């Protein structure tokens, strides 16, 4: 009789760890331009993992995810601008605000299933930006402009730490009891409840993680821009990119969001020099095809079709 694999650190974990460690060690020697690209990639990866918490693990599609990014950015901008906090302190506040907002919004919206949840979350950033536009304390339509200077290494190590913690948490969640509960909810929420799973609590739990890390990543993003601007901070495009990364990489997997971040972010930086938005023509079609043909994403498809990879990819 074969026992199920007892959670132990497999090649995927080592691979991701190696990627992070090499990056951390090499960062001081990386030239500025590639370093800023790498920072952007890590921000996107952090966003992808935070989307993975809710949409990847529970199947609840959160179109409004950017609302946590925007509030994280504004919380950061407010404490750094008004109270002269250190930017890293601001990132912690951004994370806390993101988590709290997720707790509040999740308590209401996670009652709605399927498309209702998607729509209920979709309107959140739309309403948020409308409210911020008329809130003078947050700069109204101007936003918050700070003069913080160019500190790529501080940005790098901050987002590095956030991403490392996030991936560790993803591992812990997916490989333990909670992971089974979440997979059950994703499979059939009603059946999950009748087997003793407190679906409401579990969903809210991962949604808070999701809000926390989205808020933190939003704050770091604002730091790299040295400011927060209402229409950019809550741009739905971020939600869509987060969803794209998770869908392309593989929903609910450990490696998928990182792969998705590479696939979505790298063309993004390249195309920026060609025509703004042109990469989404490609990404859009890619998402549509993946959703219809291989809804399990790159990681899922590789696992399914190449048995040798089954033990390696997770």
């Amino acid at each position, binding site marked *: 009789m074969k026992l199920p694999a007892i959670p132990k650190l497999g090649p995927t974990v080592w691979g991701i760890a190696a990627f992070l460690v090499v990056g951390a060690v090499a960062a001081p020697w990386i030239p500025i331009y590639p370093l800023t690209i790498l920072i952007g990639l890590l921000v996107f990866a952090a966003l992808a993992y935070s989307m993975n918490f809710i949409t990847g693990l529970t199947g609840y599609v959160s179109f409004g995810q950017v609302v946590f990014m925007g509030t994280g950015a504004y919380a950061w901008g407010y404490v750094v601008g008004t109270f002269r906090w250190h930017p890293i302190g601001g990132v912690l506040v951004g994370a806390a605000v993101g988590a709290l907002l997720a707790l509040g919004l999740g308590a209401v919206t996670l009652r709605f299933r399927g498309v209702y949840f998607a729509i209920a979350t979709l309107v959140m950033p739309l309403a948020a930006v409308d409210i911020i536009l008329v809130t003078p304390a947050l700069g109204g339509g101007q936003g918050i402009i700070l003069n913080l200077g160019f500190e790529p290494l501080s940005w790098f190590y901050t987002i590095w730490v956030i991403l490392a913690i996030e991936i560790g948490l993803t591992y812990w969640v997916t490989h333990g009891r909670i992971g089974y509960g979440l997979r059950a909810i994703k499979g059939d929420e009603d059946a999950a409840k009748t087997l003793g799973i407190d679906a409401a609590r579990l969903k809210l739990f991962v949604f808070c993680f999701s809000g926390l890390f989205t808020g933190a990543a939003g704050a770091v993003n604002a730091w790299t821009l040295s400011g927060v601007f209402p229409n950019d901070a809550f741009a739905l495009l971020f939600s869509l990119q987060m969803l794209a990364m998770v869908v392309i990489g593989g929903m609910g997997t450990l490696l998928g969001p990182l792969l998705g971040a590479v696939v979505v972010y790298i063309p993004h930086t390249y195309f920026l020099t060609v025509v703004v938005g042109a990469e989404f023509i490609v990404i*859009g079609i890619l998402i549509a095809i993946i959703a219809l043909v291989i809804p399990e994403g790159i990681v899922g498809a590789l696992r399914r079709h190449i048995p040798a990879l089954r033990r390696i990819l997770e």
Partner: protein
Amino acid sequence: MAEPSAVVAQLIFGIVRGILLGCVFALIAHGLNLIWGIAKVVNVAHGEFIMLGAYGAYFLNLFLGLNPLVSAPIDAALGLAVGLGFYFGFLHRELRGKEAITLQSEMVTLVATFGLSLFIANAANVLFSGNFVGIPWNAGSVELGILQIPLGGIYVAILSVAIIALTQIFLNRTYLGIGIRAYSQDIPATQLMGINPTVVAAIGTGLGFGVTMAGGAFLTVLFPTGIYPYMGALYAPISFVIVVLGGPGKMWGSLVGGITLGIIIDVGQIFLGPSIAYAVAFLTLIPVLLFRPEGILR
């Protein structure tokens, strides 16, 4: 003395404009609702088809000098064709042979149509350039006491309601329409009636797209300079909120939801400013979902 009467006049003006706006909103939401109610697919790319309808009207005006009211039926015919293509190219693969649409399928179509929306909006941005454009068509206005109401708004509002009524008559009174309604309620029963579910779902989807694109043409009358590639990002959420307000699958619900939202936005704009008006409009969704998940209509 003049103060209260000025407020009342503003309020009446807001309500009238809100109703006109709401009727057109209702029409675009109706297009979404038809696809949602019949094929059980929530088309996230809905806004992009509204945008295409608006551009359709724009180009027909630019090259042929047609006014938006004349362009609307051409848009609708185009929409029907696009909808059939959308069904067979996109939805059929996921929906084929299913007796009921599972949550899983719903998520797949949600994500797939989201990819489509990214594609269409950005392709339009490259093809049409990202500038705002508009249609120089003015039908004049009528004076109603102290109010001045644009005639174009009245025309598109009336036509919107007429189109909604026509689709209702089609769904309730014709053989094909009844087949479509049967499909929307119980797919196996449709087969027992001897109706091909694929045909019915495809026609329902085409109908939804036709209505949506005609609605896009009408919007250009209310927002004369509001045509741009990413306009769908505003009208899609508005349509979603309206359908939930009125109740998915309830076709008259679109009208009630649309007018409700139109009045909230227009009256709200006058008294609270445009930002808060839209925020309120979007957030009405939450109490409705919490307390009246079937929509505000019984």
